Every structure is written in C-alpha cells, then in structure tokens.
C-alpha cells in the first residue's frame, strides 16, 4: 500500500483567519494536502455547514482549498467498519470518505511542508515551482508560476521527522511558499 501524503502547514493565514477554513465531505478518501474546490453546500440533515468538494478545474484554480485534519488514523474493513486502533504514523492517515474533514484556503506567503506523495510526479532539479492544474488533485512540479495557485520551492532538502523502524527517522519533504493565487 502506498504511503499517504504528510503535510505540515508551517505558517498559513488560515491559522488566524477562520474564514479561510471550511468543513467538507467527499465520497472518496482525501489525502492531506489534496487540492479541491468548494462544491455545493450539503443538503443532508445535520450537515448544514459542510460542503462537497470538486476536482480543480481551470475556472477554480484561484480559489482552491487544501485538506488538512489532525492525523488520527482510521482503518476501514472491507464491510465498511471503521476502527481507530492507535496508529500514529501519519503516512497511514487519510481523510476517510464520507467523514467530515477540514480544508484551508492557501493565501499568498503561506508556507507548507509536504512530502513527495503530494505531487503528481517526482521532483527534479529543474523544477522551481509547484502549481495547481486543471483536473489534478495533487500539486504539479513546474518551472514557473501558472494560472492560479502557485507555490515557489524554498527547499528540496527539508524533512519531516517520523519514528521509523531501525533506520532513518527523516522523510524528505518540500518546503513551499505560496506566491500566486490569481
């Protein structure tokens, strides 16, 4: 099973501005750092402040959200039963389908730390930016800003510390700063 994306919002506007945060639900699992746009407000009873999500499209690239919820791993059995068994590894965490999760709206100068799983392809030295793209729920490496949400790569040698078995405790992560929204 592939590892899930691990993201740390190092310094984001959403820490101070509550309107940059919203509650969402999705019929599919959503990884941390996944990009989406705000869909319709739920009509389900008891979910009057919860929105559906939509895949990024050309028209929404400037108003995207990123998923970020406290990592509390839920294991799902084939019959749909869900268990919290005390798994602390954030690489096993995903926002499970149909459970409400948090998304924040990145702003210019927001700084995040995100692992390689958060991108559509591996990084190479020519890439200086990571951008949102039509139809992509993950960031796409690029050589410059694009139309819509664009991050500048500040460090490709950053890491996130995770207790691992008999070896390195560091997972390579990319430090990104948001430089463009529109």
């Amino acid at each position, binding site marked *: 099973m592939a590892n899930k994306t691990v993201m740390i919002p190092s*310094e984001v506007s959403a820490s101070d501005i509550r309107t940059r945060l919203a509650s969402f639900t999705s019929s599919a699992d959503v990884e941390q750092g996944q990009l989406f746009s705000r869909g319709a407000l739920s009509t389900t009873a008891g979910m009057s402040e919860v929105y559906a999500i939509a895949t990024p499209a050309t028209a929404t690239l400037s108003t995207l959200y990123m998923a970020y919820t406290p990592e509390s791993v839920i294991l799902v059995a084939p019959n749909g039963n869900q268990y919290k068994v005390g798994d602390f590894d954030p690489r096993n965490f995903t926002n499970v389908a149909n459970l409400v999760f948090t998304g924040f709206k990145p702003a210019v100068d927001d700084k995040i730390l995100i692992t390689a799983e958060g991108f559509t392809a591996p990084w190479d030295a020519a890439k200086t930016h990571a951008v949102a793209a039509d139809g992509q729920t993950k960031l796409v490496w690029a050589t410059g800003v694009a139309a819509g949400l664009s991050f500048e790569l500040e460090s490709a040698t950053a890491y996130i*510390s*995770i*207790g691992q*078995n008999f070896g390195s405790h560091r997972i390579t992560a990319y430090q990104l700063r948001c430089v463009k929204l529109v």
Partner: protein
Amino acid sequence: MNKMPISVMNFTAGNEIRTKAYAQMAAYVAAFNEGKKNVMGENGEVSFADANETVLKFYKSEIEFMSGKKMADYPLDVYCNFADVKQAAFAIIGMITDLIIPDALIKDIGMISAIKNIGFGDSFKIDIQPRDLFIVSKGSRGKRSYDEKRQFKGTYTLIPEPRNITVAIPLYSILNGDYSIAEFVMKAVQSIEVNVRYDIYDAFDTAMNALATTGDALLKIVGFSQDTALGLQQKVSAWNGNKEAVFLGTKIALGKILPASTNFRFDLGSEYVKIGHLRDYFGVSCIELQNVADYRTEFKMKLKDTVLYVVSPAADKIVKVVFEGSTLANAGGNYDNANLQVETTLSKSYAVGVLTGAIGGYITL
C-alpha cells in the same frame, strides 16, 4: 520491559507455594544451563540431585492437585492412563515451557532482544518516537510566532503465528520401556526454544547486514580497524541518545579486536589469553554471544565468526519477540490412533521481528 507470561502470572497468582516453586524451577534450569554444580535453593545451596527430587515431588503434587486423584491410591500404570491425570501433567508442562523459554532467552540474548507477552487474539504494537530534535532558527523581535514545527510517532505491529510440533511413539515402545513420551516432549520444548533463538539471530543479522555502507548514514563497515570500529561505536552511542554502545560477537570475532599498535599488546596481560578476547577495548565493553549449534544443518554453527555487532543494550532492544497466550500441549490417549501411536502436540504462537527506534552497527572482519 520484560515480563513473565500472562499465563504463568495468572496460574501462580494468589498461591504462594506455587509462585515460589515455579520461580525455583526457573532458577534450577538456569543454573543447570550455566553448568553450575549446585543450585541455590530456598534454604541454601543444594545439589542438582536434590533439586531434581524437589521438582519431581512438586510436579507430582501439582498433578494430584489438578486431577484430584492421589497417585498412591492406584497402580502407577492405571494412574498414568487417567485422562485428567494426563491433562494435568501436560498443563504443567505447558506452564513450565512458558516459564523456561522466555527466561532462557532473556539471559542468553537479552542484549539484542526483548521478550513481550500478549494474550490470545491480541496483536503487538509498538510506537516509535522520532529521535530528531526540532531545528531552532534566529528570528526577528517583532514577530509573534514562527514556523510551526511538528514531528510524528511511527507505529509498527507484530502478529504471532503458531509453531507446532507433534511427537509420536508406538504404544508398544512405551509399554516395553524403550521410550517415554516425556523425553520426546522435553526435546520438543527445547526445539521450540532453539527455533525462537534462530529466528532472533536471523532477524537481527539480516537487519544489521542491510545497514547503509556509504555517506553520513554509514553503519556497516567492511574490515576491522581501530579507528573505524571506535568511530562506529561513537556514532551508534551518540545516535542512540548517548546510550553507550558495546561490541558483540562470538569468541572468535571478539578475539580480532586488538589495538592497532603492537606496542600496546604487551599490556594485554593474561586476560586476552584466558578468556580469548579483551573485556574492554579503549573503554568499550566487548561482550560474547555464545555460538550455538545450527540443528538445521548437521555440525553447522549458527552465528557468524566474521562479524562484530555494535549495539547499545541500554537503548531499545533491536529484536522483539512476542509470545501469544500460553503453550498448548495436546496429549493424545494411548488408544486414540488406529495404529497405536501415542502422540503429543505442542503449539507455541510467537512472532519475531526487528522493531526498534534504536540503531546499530555492523563490522565484517
């Protein structure tokens, strides 16, 4: 932390005589394995002959207590064929197995492994704390907060699987006194213990052998030299939270640890000659892993004489051994099988794996 198996704890709880007797039994076995001539009993030192008699007496009293039948009331062959007597006898064998195996493993290879006990149906989980500290940065005076730093624990699991062994003897061989099922069962218990030991060694060596050989992450060195070995020892100690690392190896491997300068060797005294290796090498302890026979291939030895391991015993043990529940001893009746074979099956569920936040070093000689 190492603990006694839950089954033994429950079995002896609230019964002082039983608690003392089983503790004494474990001490007898340990003393016997260490090649001692006498063993410390409750009232001072006793010979193994006396200890054996005490154990047998206790064993008989336990069977009588559990089966509710007095041995003296029946002829011995009739008594031994009672189903409840057999069940009691094998329940006690199972209990002794649960007591002796972890005890023997802790004493012999406690440097590299930790024994854990879980109940039937449980899984073993370990959470590994990251060893990293947070990176500190200079910051301006006019800013309320700085980049939020986080780190995460990792979680790993082990699921025990049963290991089974069935021993069988023709009923006729028991009746004519050629063999007893007890001696076969004793070997079966030893076989399980040895199997656990091999699994520990294999898991340990495989993980250590796979360590990085280049760059800053280098933890595996080819060829022994004073500087590289001590450098590796320093690295393992430092990255295990300053828990002093030691050199581990067989007698032959440890014998290769000598000062680079032959000028120092006149000072080795008789220690090197007497025990075959240095106890301390530039302040680093050298600890022998006793080599053992590898019963899977006749006359082969299990441990490599060409390897030195560098581990911090005070840090987290590298290998975890997890025993699930108690040993199941299933003793068949004399007439259960159509061919009059008498069978006993032992089943012990365990898992062995490398699960640790610590690191180690590997030196091939």
